[in-house]
């Protein structure tokens, strides 16, 4: 039944870039999450025009489309449902530097770290550096509004994207934002960033060039107790220092990662904190000393400053490969990425350990402590009967504990498919309805990555004719009744 669709796509792209092989569709049925879906035809466009051709072909055949980059998403955002046309951007890897405007235009398939390497000789980099940066694509970074350790000081992807050329779900082309200081209209660019593939497909992205800092210092502080480490994180911020990054790893994850990288992490520490300060040399020297002082005052056993670039890279390698290393403990993991107010970090962390204990699960914590972004990894062996239920129950409790502390559901991984049900915990129905309207402005027919992000029933119905009584009820309960 895909025959004509394949034929049309083959004619627009080329036959070797339109795949309809069953086993391959199975491979594209998943990303880095636990979710599994069902891919239809898989195509690999090279240009904006080819992406448009794909979207239009899908439109003619009444097929939904799902954009996909490297497939490193952790929330099932790229998992295809009901055999959509999968538009894979990995072959779109063009890079054009525009030094005059201090931006670089990239195609969506460019790998985050490749871009930074490309820019290095020019003295610039792309600031968002998610832990998957060696693999994840810029298109994926835009879709998820990716963060990474360094977004503590530099901001997430949204702050670095200046303009996006987008193929809209109806096949039309639009440039959202622009290189000019104040593009006309509302900030559609900002709406698109983080839209998880639900508002169209980015085909060219202009991102800001961030100058490489003249000086950088990376510190590793080790603590006997995770509580001391968490207190140190708060104390650093309270001391008026905003480092480029503050990361924390507990003992279990430190041990797993150390077995891979051999970075010299103290494996007997209850928790380690990795801090990076950067900028001009004076500030770096000042902040390095300040961070060291604060950590020692909070009970650090030692504070080590990376002696050279090689040591610095090694310290970071350990942090950035942490998720992948969990299979050294158990073959599967399920994680949330809630953010809690920095001052509640310690409290929520304690609850996370208690929740895992209650469900007889192993939890490993590695996270962006500086901005309160938790990544509790519940590790398990899916072959053990009944364990998934325990994992999910514990996951929900972690989400509740985070939200009750005044936090949010996701700091950087997005909602995708996996976290969708929890949206209703954080938002009222009018909140969700407003988000649904934003999506509808781009994709009125729900063709692009359908059934993601917003849970079913997010739309409130005809609010335009809301009477006073129902308005009062909605205001009082937050739920449409």
């Amino acid at each position: 039944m895909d025959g004509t669709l394949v034929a049309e796509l083959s004619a627009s792209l080329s036959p070797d870039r339109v795949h309809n092989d069953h086993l391959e569709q199975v491979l594209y049925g998943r990303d880095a999450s636990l979710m599994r879906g069902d891919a239809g035809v898989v195509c690999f466009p090279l240009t904006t025009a080819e992406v448009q051709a794909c979207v239009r072909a899908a439109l003619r055949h009444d097929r939904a489309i799902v954009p996909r980059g490297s497939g490193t998403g952790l929330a099932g955002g790229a998992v295809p449902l009901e055999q959509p046309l999968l538009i894979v951007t990995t072959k779109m890897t063009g890079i054009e530097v525009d030094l005059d405007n201090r931006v670089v235009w990239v195609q969506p398939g460019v790998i985050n770290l490749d871009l930074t390497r490309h820019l290095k000789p020019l003295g610039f980099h792309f600031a968002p550096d998610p832990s998957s940066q060696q693999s994840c694509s810029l298109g994926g970074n835009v879709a998820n509004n990716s963060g990474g350790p360094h977004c503590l000081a530099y901001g997430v992807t949204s702050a670095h994207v200046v303009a996006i050329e987008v193929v809209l779900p109806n096949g039309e082309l639009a440039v959202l934002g622009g290189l000019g200081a104040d593009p006309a209209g509302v900030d559609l660019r900002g709406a698109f960033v983080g839209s998880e593939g639900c508002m169209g497909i980015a085909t060219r992205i202009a991102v800001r060039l961030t100058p490489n800092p003249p000086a950088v210092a990376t510190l590793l502080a080790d603590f006997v107790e995770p509580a001391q480490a968490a207190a140190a994180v708060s104390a650093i911020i309270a001391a008026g220092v905003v480092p480029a990054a503050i990361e924390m790893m507990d003992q279990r994850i430190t041990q797993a990662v150390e077995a891979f990288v051999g970075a010299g992490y103290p494996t007997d520490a209850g928790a380690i904190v990795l801090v990076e300060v950067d900028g001009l040399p004076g500030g770096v020297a000042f902040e390095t000393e300040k961070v060291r002082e604060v950590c020692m005052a909070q009970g650090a056993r030692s504070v080590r400053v990376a002696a050279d670039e090689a040591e610095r890279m090694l310290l970071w390698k350990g942090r950035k490969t942490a998720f992948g290393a969990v299979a050294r403990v158990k073959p599967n993991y399920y994680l949330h990425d809630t953010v809690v107010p920095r001052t509640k970090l310690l409290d929520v962390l304690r609850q996370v350990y208690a929740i895992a204990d209650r469900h007889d699960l192993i939890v490993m914590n590695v996270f962006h402590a500086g901005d309160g972004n938790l990544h509790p990894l519940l590790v398990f062996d899916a072959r053990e009967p009944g364990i998934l239920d325990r994992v999910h129950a514990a996951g929900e409790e972690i989400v509740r504990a985070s939200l009750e502390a005044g936090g949010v559901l996701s700091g950087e991984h997005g909602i995708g498919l996996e976290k969708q049900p929890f949206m209703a915990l954080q938002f009222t129905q009018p909140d969700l309805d407003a988000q649904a309207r934003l999506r509808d402005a781009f994709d009125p027919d729900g063709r692009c990555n359908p059934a993601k992000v917003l849970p079913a029933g997010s739309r409130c119905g005809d609010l335009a004719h809301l009477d006073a009584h129902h308005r009062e009820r909605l205001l009082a309960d937050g739920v449409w009744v």
Partner: protein
Amino acid sequence: MKLPLVEDELASCVSCGLCLPHCPTFRVTGEERYSPRGRIEAIRQVHVGNQPADASFVDMMDTCLQCRGCETACPSGVPFGHLMEAARQGLNEQTRYQPWYRRVGYRTLAYHRALVIGSRALALVQRSGLVPSRRLGLPDRLPLRVPALRPQTVASGAARVWLHTGCVMDAWQRDVHAAALAVIGATGTAVTLPERIHGAGCCGALATHAGLVGVARAQAEATMRSFPGEDPVLVDSAGCGAQLKDLGHLLGTDEASHFSTRVRDIHEWIAEHLDRLPDGVGPRRTVSVAVQDPCHLRHVQRAHLSVRRVLAPYLDLVELDDEGLCCGAGGAYSVLQPELAGDIRTRKLESIARSGATLVASANPGCSLHLAAAGLTVRHPVQLLAEALGLVDG
């Protein structure tokens, strides 16, 4: 189809995708089917799920270079090489996966004398211009005469080492062995060569990669028997070294595991004996040398840094910026998958060009042939070392 793999090894992949950019075939295609994560998932689908081991599956397995770059990149330590070998073994045992002529070809590698004679015959035909050498992955000029190898005379009572001479390398690149003998001799160490007519030919690496476990075991066993005693066995081919260091896994015997502990890559050994080498002679080379790491030295043996330690005192080295991505040679791969191998090599050539080096050092015969076929000047690090020491002519 059940594949002869260890299920816990298969379960150890969490699909994080950190391997993707470290896979040469994913790098040039951007397709999941040509990535380690995709291949593992395909193996899972065939082994655990009910997917047939169809042509698509075979293609996914066949296009893997077995460079094992994914292994060094994998935080979970997934033993990808084992999984891939098991998949190919399963295909061999349960399907008509390897055609008869390839099976015969792998077996022939063990018959060393026949190989040397055959190579000479091919060299003659090559001079006639009738052989499309580059397409077949052959060196431009196969040697007509293979010089006899003569270990240096050293003081009696000196320590002894073995030098593994292998199959194709001994036939085509015996001058590398000659350089190795000269360098080892210069440290005052005696070298024993294996008895090569009936003894050590192919170590079985190519058959292992092809999943021909029976052939591989027989060849490995014969090779092991050619090195009696306890003297270290030095290997100047990265692929062979990787194979010989892992015989415990292949043969499953204590004897094999013990043998593997005696195996050293020649650069590892030289790096430990640098103080015994004389100073370099003549003016230092003015060109800088790009070090190309053979995958089986970098990702499998993880001994690539010793090449730098050995060369750095004598030559100006430059590093490539591609994080040790495979050059596309992959044993017989460049012949079997010429298109992918070519695309992968192009990436390597670009990286070499960016480095500004005009000379490439590569410690594996397959890589040097593959790169030389693209017009590069490639020498074995041991050759560069021997020249710098004035032991052989440059």
